[in-house]
């Protein structure tokens, strides 16, 4: 007789945090692909010609140039762009160092407003034009203004329902990504690769601006003012955590590498002070410990390790349950506990290798959303087969990055692996797979 009240198996909840971060990334990519396929079918050339921005300042691609010229021009563009981004990131580090956090926060709010209001408005106008939606200026303006203001509030204040905040962040990511896809083709690809390399350098090199930023933030135990997407903590402590119990950011007491930092993406896009997507919003992958320590509920938490990836500094360590975490990936078994107070430290991580504590919410910088979506959007401009292939590649890259994060326990850039896989799969699909599949399909030969 099968037992009716069966104990819940681990399969019920394993991997939930990863899904909670993959879902918004996928949603953002889907929205960008839809926008691209709807809006770009007829007007590819005209819009890209008019999209002058910092990214095309050095060279404007025209279809009559040879491949080599295009490549050189794209390289030049990307170098300029990366240089600008580096400068702005250093500026940000400087500002943060001088504790101008108020200024940064206001700037963040201002940029969100500009992105939602102006970029969103322009895209809305394109859509209205395309579908001949009957709407008058005043209504449009009022609606747009309200939309943008609510967005700013959602991004700023933590008291707003998290789903609204998450929704707005995804929208902001989508809007900026769409504008990036308007750049000429070669420039976009070389830019993506350049940004991935920059990310790698900025996070891993000792003089990298992002690393400095994170170290500063850790040493002061402050929040980095950034546009960061935060996945709901799995415990259901979400609304409570932000409202009632103060969010504690627990950093590792090593050199603060728990965040996966990404490139700073202060893209001075277009007419907009596009940077809104501010600095280091780019792929900062963080696990914030939601103060579960107070509730200190142990093993009942289903399958989750209470120990977060981010560890507390001396005393604040959660008296987490030692037995809760289990390294899933073999090698992880013997992480030496770095923090003396923390027995649970050894385990931690590895909830199937991505290892973030249940009570920790995963944070992913908005820049990651944007560049992933740019890649997929660009792939959509060629064909849908590349879209599916690139989507899978990016998700795989994200998974690998999360795993590496759990493995190395230090700040890792989230862009390189995904972008590398994405570009690789794009090229392979475009030049190899498509011919093969079309050949087989048209002869109705399938396997």
């Amino acid at each position, binding site marked *: 007789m099968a037992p009716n009240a069966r104990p819940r198996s*681990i399969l019920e909840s394993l991997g939930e945090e990863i899904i909670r971060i993959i879902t918004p990334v996928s949603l953002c990519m889907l929205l960008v692909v839809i926008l691209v396929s709807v809006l770009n079918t007829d007007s590819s050339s005209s819009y890209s010609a008019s999209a002058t921005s910092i990214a095309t300042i050095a060279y404007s691609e025209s279809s009559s140039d040879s491949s080599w010229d295009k490549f050189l021009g794209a390289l030049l563009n990307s170098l300029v762009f990366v240089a600008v981004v580096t400068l702005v990131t250093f500026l940000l580090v400087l500002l943060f160092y001088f504790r101008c956090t108020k200024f940064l926060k206001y700037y963040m709010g201002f940029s969100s407003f500009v992105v939602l209001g102006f970029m969103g408005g322009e895209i809305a106008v394109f859509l209205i034009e395309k579908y001949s939606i009957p709407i008058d200026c005043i209504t449009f303006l009022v609606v747009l203004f309200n939309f943008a203001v609510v967005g700013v509030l959602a991004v700023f204040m933590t008291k707003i329902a998290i789903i609204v905040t998450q929704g707005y962040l995804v929208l902001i990511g989508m809007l900026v990504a769409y504008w990036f896809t308007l750049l000429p083709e070669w420039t976009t690809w070389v830019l993506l690769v350049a940004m991935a390399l920059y990310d790698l350098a900025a996070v891993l090199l000792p003089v990298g601006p992002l690393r400095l930023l994170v170290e500063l933030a850790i040493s002061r135990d402050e929040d980095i003012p950034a546009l960061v997407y935060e996945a709901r903590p799995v415990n259901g402590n979400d609304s409570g955590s932000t409202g009632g119990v103060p969010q504690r950011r627990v950093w590792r007491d090593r050199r603060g590498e728990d965040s996966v930092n990404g490139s700073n993406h202060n893209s001075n896009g277009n007419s907009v002070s596009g940077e809104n997507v501010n600095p280091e919003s780019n792929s900062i992958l963080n696990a914030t410990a939601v103060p579960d320590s107070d509730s200190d509920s142990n*093993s009942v938490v289903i399958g989750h390790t209470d120990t977060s990836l981010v560890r507390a500094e001396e005393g604040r360590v959660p008296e987490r349950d030692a037995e809760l975490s289990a*390294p*899933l990936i073999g090698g992880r078994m013997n992480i030496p506990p770095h923090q003396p107070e923390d027995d649970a430290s050894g385990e931690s991580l590895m909830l199937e290798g991505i290892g973030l504590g249940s009570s920790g919410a995963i944070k992913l910088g908005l820049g990651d959303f944007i560049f992933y979506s740019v890649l997929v959007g660009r792939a959509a401009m060629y064909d849908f087969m590349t879209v599916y292939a690139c989507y899978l590649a990016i*998700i795989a890259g994200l998974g690998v990055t999360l795993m590496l994060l759990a493995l190395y326990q230090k700040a890792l850039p989230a862009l390189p692996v995904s972008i590398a896989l994405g570009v690789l799969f794009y090229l392979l699909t475009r030049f190899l797979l498509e011919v093969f599949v079309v050949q087989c399909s048209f002869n109705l030969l*399938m396997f």
Partner: protein
Amino acid sequence: MTIAAGIGYALLALGPSLSLFVSVISKKPFLILTVLSSTLLWLISLIVLSGLWRGFLPLNSTTWWPYGLLLFTSIAFQEGLRLLFWRVYRRLEDLLDAFADKVSKPRLFMTDKMQISLAGGLGHGVAHAVFFCLSLLTPAFGPATFFVDRCSQIPFFLVSAIIALAFVTIHTFSMVIAFNGYAEGNKMDQLFVPVVHLAAGLVTLVNFASGGCIVSIPLLYFIAILTLIYCGKMVWRRLTEHQSTQGNS
């Protein structure tokens, strides 16, 4: 084709998998990850195959034997990959069990294992449908539609959607059969899967004859239903055996 028709074709190919996804898989995040990874694996196998065959394409579309060779190599490769997938899954299963012990939860139930293999199979099936059917569908929205000479009664997209549906079924359930066969060491199950895959592939070769799809599609569905029934019987058998051992112990 129109948007309505396009959505219809897409749902034809992927409808059952969508309902399977929503009812069984979406509730367990780990299964969603399994689907994604097995889709990726299938895509990689397809890319490798296309890399291998790229030099020989485009093949002469009147003779069928180069295609036969192509099919044979592709299916052999994919079955080999299934074995690899099984190995990885074994490792994963051990890790999961160790993890379950650590968090003092029960180890993986038999139904859990079957669900994981179902998710793996679904990933393969969805990958097939997406790359062979959907990716040709989505750019073709617009006023006209397309017919293939050899099967000229119905639009190409409809034919490919129907064939994709059969293959989705075959892929999804043969993974369950295969994993069960490897777990139990049952030679019959282990042989059943590659044979069925090969048979299904070869049946599509019949499409080369003019009007061949009238013959091949029912055959294909026969194979799909066979797989479904075999899988159902196998699962039923295992579940009842398991029940009886549970009841006895």
